[in-house]
């Protein structure tokens, strides 16, 4: 999707989120959570992320996360985007979970090279794959695009970088670009679609978009209906209706 298809207000929201000036003002804005005061003043009609102070990601990483998830799942005519549904918050919270520290992965060496059929064979747990990957991608962008970090590129360039990461066309310093991209995309999707209690999918917006009834868990009366769309909206783990 191109920048032109986005609404003016949407563009203002994203810009207000990612172009946080570094320094005391930025620190204050991050401390208060995003978006900063200026973004609140120009709050767009389609909603804005709740104030959230990242605890895992630092300021540079946070800029990357917001920019990247907005490209992976943009706001568009099909439904809400990752940023407005709180996927950055999900990612920050998820990176602090035991899972992201490798609690259920086999993490012992030796670490040998193997073909892709054998999956990830490196020594990093998920949180470090994400962190190292972000630093590597930003370093690549700074080197390639006149000192601009990923978040500072225009949207088309960001999409081009993501495509190249996905296809393994960019050689990152410390990690396979394909591996980083696959894990980052999987995490982004998980945040977009998982229960709102995990920080993303605010107001069940992603479920409403695809027509997923969430945690209803009871379709005995509907399984034989053939001629009508399922009529009920989603329910989340907390019992809220979307």
């Amino acid at each position, binding site marked *: *999707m191109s920048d032109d298809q986005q609404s003016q207000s949407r563009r203002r929201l994203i810009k207000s989120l990612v172009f946080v000036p570094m320094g005391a003002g930025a620190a204050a804005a991050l401390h208060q959570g995003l978006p900063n005061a200026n973004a609140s003043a120009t709050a767009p009609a389609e909603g804005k992320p709740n104030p959230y102070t990242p605890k895992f990601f630092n300021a540079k990483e946070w800029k990357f996360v917001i920019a990247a998830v907005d*490209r*992976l*799942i*943009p706001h*568009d*005519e*099909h*439904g809400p985007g990752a940023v407005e549904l709180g996927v950055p918050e999900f990612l920050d919270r998820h990176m602090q979970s035991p*899972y992201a520290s*490798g*609690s*259920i*992965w*086999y*993490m*012992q060496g*030796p670490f*040998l090279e*193997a*073909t*892709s*059929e*054998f*999956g*990830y*064979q490196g020594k990093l747990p998920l949180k470090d794959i994400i962190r190292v990957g972000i630093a590597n991608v930003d370093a690549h962008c700074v080197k390639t695009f006149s000192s601009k970090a990923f978040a500072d590129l225009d949207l088309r360039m960001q*999409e081009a970088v*993501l495509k190249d990461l*996905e296809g393994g066309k960019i050689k990152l310093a410390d990690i396979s670009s394909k591996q980083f991209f696959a894990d980052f*995309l999987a995490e*982004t*999707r*998980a945040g977009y*679609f*998982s*229960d709102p*209690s995990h920080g993303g999918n605010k107001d069940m917006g*992603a*479920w409403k*978009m*695809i*027509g*997923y*009834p969430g*945690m209803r*868990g*009871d*379709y*005995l009366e*509907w*399984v*034989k*209906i053939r*001629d*009508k*769309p*399922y009529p009920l909206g989603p329910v989340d*783990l907390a*019992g809220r209706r979307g």
Partner: protein
Amino acid sequence: MAIVKEKKDAVIVGAGWVGAIMAKELTDAGLNVVILERGPDRDTQTDFAYPRVIDELEGSVHRKYLQSLAQETVTIRHNLSTVAVPKRRMGSFKPGTGVGGAGSHWSGVHFRALPEDLNLRSTMEQRYGKKIMPAGMSIQDFPVTFEELEPHFSHFEYVCGTSGKAGVLNGKVVEGGNPFEGSRSREYPLGPNPDYLGGEMFYKAAREMGYHPFPIPASNTSASYVNPYGCQMGPCNFCGFCSDYGCLNYSKASPNINIFPVLRGRKNFEMRTLAQVLKVNLTADGKMATGVNYLDAGGQECEQPADIVILGAFSLYNVHLMLISKIGPAYDPVTRTGTVGRNYSYQNLNRVSLFFDKNVHANQFMGIGGGGTAFDDLNGNRNDPTKSGFVGGGVIWARQPGGGPVRGIATAPGVPNWGSDWKKGAKDAMRHSFYYEVQGSCMAYDDAYLDLDPNYKDAFGRPLLRMTFDWHDNEIAASAYLVDKAQEMCKVLNPLATKGDAKKPGTHYNINQYQSTHTVGGAIMGADPKTSALNKYLQSWDVPNVFAPGANAFPQNNGYNPTGMVGALAYWCAKAIREQYIKNPGPLVQA
């Protein structure tokens, strides 16, 4: 020094289906029994309660109900000349942990074996001659017949409240069921579940193609049910959370719902959870087991003496324990001698997704793990290898175990993985697509086996189990043939698009993506102690007070899911222990 516990008549490793069945049967016989389960205790009301249990992030990303690979995993390589690397993340197969084991997070598909599956080698040789088998294919007959197992298949279905329709009842073909199945002594305890749209469409297409579709036998209850042990089940409500999840509704059969309620509280039964068994202890001459050593919840090493040791762990870990404990000679793929590790095989699963427009309400979110429609026209004896080009067969089905967006939405061909077009593709697919699966058999080969890894250890300091496995030409040919048949059926239904994944020449086994948890073999049952680890009663040829009645016992894998067969083998084994072994301990078959 290990803390020595009070001696039991029998110690059982693992609280899955095998552990539960053996504990029930052996306590019924008056033995004092203890189960050692590596994971936590689990029960429906406490651990599978709605809605918490169906959190997709916890169940399908954090793998809450599966084994943590941080403690134990396997290493994998494609052939003998390469170095194996660990399965670091959960992928192609999903062992469970905790009370219920894989029997709590399975789907519920509950097949028996076909009669000819049990004497596959001799059937092939009689019909097509010995040359039909390619070099290196090491398939064998089971040393037990369908007729011997029939009462046990039947009993297990009644324990599980299996829903289905008989196809052959007391020798007579019955309309509506599978006409190719072995003769049943009685109907299923419950009738079939209602079918989904995808299953109905599959049924129509199969009939048009001249196949014989039937409802998949499902241990997901189609009605309220009380099993022979007095355990109550409620009708399945299609919640869409079977695979990866415990059942919130007392509807999907599990050891937790169907057996353990009658065991808990029995004076001659004890369950110890968070008890990691490390090895089976043998006498100095290695000819008898004296019990097992395990780590208790606090990490203390304990010794549990027992007269009988039942290995009821996941198939791979049964083999691991036998290798670690030196129960029987390890298989050597070069000399083709030794028995433990021999004939490891898997399942040849392939999927075809069908995408429709918005007036086809497939509603993937509704689901029932075992429900749907299948046909066996290309399975077992119906497949002629001289025409198809492969030995074995497979079942083709439309199954809808329930899809959620975190588990993944399969999108139509050409849809990218992200961006606006992906959003549109996911939206279109969620409610208006479904899939067919081709679940093929997997033959055994001289070079597909299990042994101990020389480089990697588990969290307890033991060598990991090493798996040497890759797809052989026979299975690649089967995949291409069966997926092609499934694609032909798709055409009858006029979908907007289809997406299939037949294996191509040169396709290697991939450990990343989920394929099937049906990993079998490695400690197989057989008639010859030179080529099998277990005799026809699932008793170790080498250490006769050790029994291992799991999927490890399959000499090769048929086209069906293994659970029905595993349950029947456990009851068959228990009967032999109760009626023969207890009175006269020792080898039940003379080598």
